[in-house]
């Protein structure tokens, strides 16, 4: 069920877009209204999620590290894996964000001859890296539909991505890489028993959604051609807030756009928020200076104290009457 429900959901979404556009002719709803709403949900949801995280107190540095802490001068500290300075943190964060360094430490554990053994497991890191960079390249490439004139970096991305010059329209390597990477990320959840056990519907749903977005895009580019000039008129209409629906755009485009809209709207409520979350990981973005700097617990409330002097001031007369000794007369 955890696997089939998301699959059925994605298929249902495709059917909704297909029926809505080719059956009911609701091109405006699927081409203009839903993308705007989805983008708005994405922006507001993303901001409020990050702000919510930002409001959580950080009482203490969490030194989960893979390196020696800075302590005595003759003990060599690891400046990147256990940084004591902001500079070290920045390097650690850059390596984390751009190269997924934590994932590179991924291990697999198995029983070999009755003994528990740990081994290196880089495939997840490799597939993850391939997937994220392909997605980034595809995203940058898509800016050709949202800018006029088209900026140089978009042209670079297109040229580099299609550098093999195979076929027409030029084959983009990232199209294949993203399919292979998503397929790997999905199949490992299905075939590794431990992973299947912990995988939930919200692990499968983004995979199916992204897979269907990639497949619909590839179909549209290489197989069921759509009116590309019309598509750009539509997208330019969206970004210049003068939306219009040009004629002759195939239903495959609306399916693609609807799935992307769903991805955008779903983003702030899902695990995909690791995009913002990686920057707010307390184990990554804080320098381990617990012993060098005093960190005051932010939720320490002011404690009301009633000192003995105050007590005596309040009850002095009564104390004297009862014969209890007082410090001040």
């Amino acid at each position, binding site marked *: 069920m955890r696997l089939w429900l998301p699959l059925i959901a994605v298929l249902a979404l495709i059917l909704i877009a297909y029926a809505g556009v080719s059956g009911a002719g609701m091109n405006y709803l699927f081409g203009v209204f839903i993308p705007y709403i989805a983008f708005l949900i*994405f*922006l507001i949801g*993303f*901001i409020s999620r*990050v*702000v919510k*995280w*930002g*409001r*959580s*107190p*950080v009482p203490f540095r969490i030194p989960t590290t893979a390196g020696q802490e800075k302590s005595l001068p003759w003990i060599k500290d690891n400046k990147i894996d256990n940084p004591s300075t902001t500079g070290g943190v920045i390097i650690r964060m850059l390596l984390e964000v751009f190269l997924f360094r934590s994932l590179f430490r991924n291990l697999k554990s198995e029983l070999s001859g009755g003994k528990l053994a740990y081994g290196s497991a880089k495939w997840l890191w490799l597939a993850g890296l391939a997937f994220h960079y392909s997605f980034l390249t595809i995203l940058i490439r898509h*800016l*050709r*539909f*949202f*800018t*006029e004139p*088209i*900026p140089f970096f*978009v*042209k670079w991305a*297109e*040229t580099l991505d299609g550098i093999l*010059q195979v*076929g*027409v*329209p030029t084959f983009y390597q990232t199209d294949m890489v993203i399919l292979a990477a998503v397929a790997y990320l999905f199949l490992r959840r299905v075939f590794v028993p431990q992973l299947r056990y912990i995988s939930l519907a919200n692990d499968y749903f983004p995979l199916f959604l992204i897979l269907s977005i990639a497949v619909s895009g590839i179909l549209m580019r290489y197989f069921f*051609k*759509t*009116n*590309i*000039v019309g598509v*750009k*008129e539509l997208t*330019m*209409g969206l*970004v*210049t807030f003068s939306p219009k629906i040009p004629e*002759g755009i195939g239903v495959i485009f609306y399916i693609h756009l609807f799935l992307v809209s769903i991805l955008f709207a779903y983003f702030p409520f899902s695990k995909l928020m690791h995009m*913002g979350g990686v*920057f*707010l990981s307390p184990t990554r973005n804080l320098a381990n200076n617990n012993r060098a700097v005093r960190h005051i617990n*932010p939720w320490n409330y002011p404690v009301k104290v009633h000192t003995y002097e105050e007590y005596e001031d309040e009850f002095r007369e009564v104390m004297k009457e009862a014969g209890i000794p007082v410090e001040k007369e």
Partner: protein
Amino acid sequence: MYDGGKIITGLVVFIGLVTFPLWSNVGKAAKKPDPKIDTPVIQQLPEKERKCIEPKALMQAEHMKILNDWRDAVVRDGNRIYVSSSGKSFNMSLQKECMNCHSNKKKFCDECHNYADVKPYCWTCHIEPKEKEKVAWASIEENS
């Protein structure tokens, strides 16, 4: 908010990036490409013979594939005869057949290719038509 300065700076950068298409297009009127088919050769043709080798919709969607197939047929098999779906025969040649009618590369090919940022590599081997002669369609502006 804890570390609010850093978090809000990050959020502002993020919003700036994701709304790039919105603010980078402000004040720029998106002009729609308008490919022209009014070359002298086409205009000399009688009205009902003004047709491409295949129907317009098919040409719009598949012209790149047809050209690619032509290249393979000519270069690899030496076959220069293309029989269209309507049974007419054409000479498989970009420069002599296609560009004979569509001699206005800038206003026909480039108009949409530039708009959609498509960079066909036809002209790395073929000779680009020289559009020096002043004709009606190329009067005002030249695409960069």
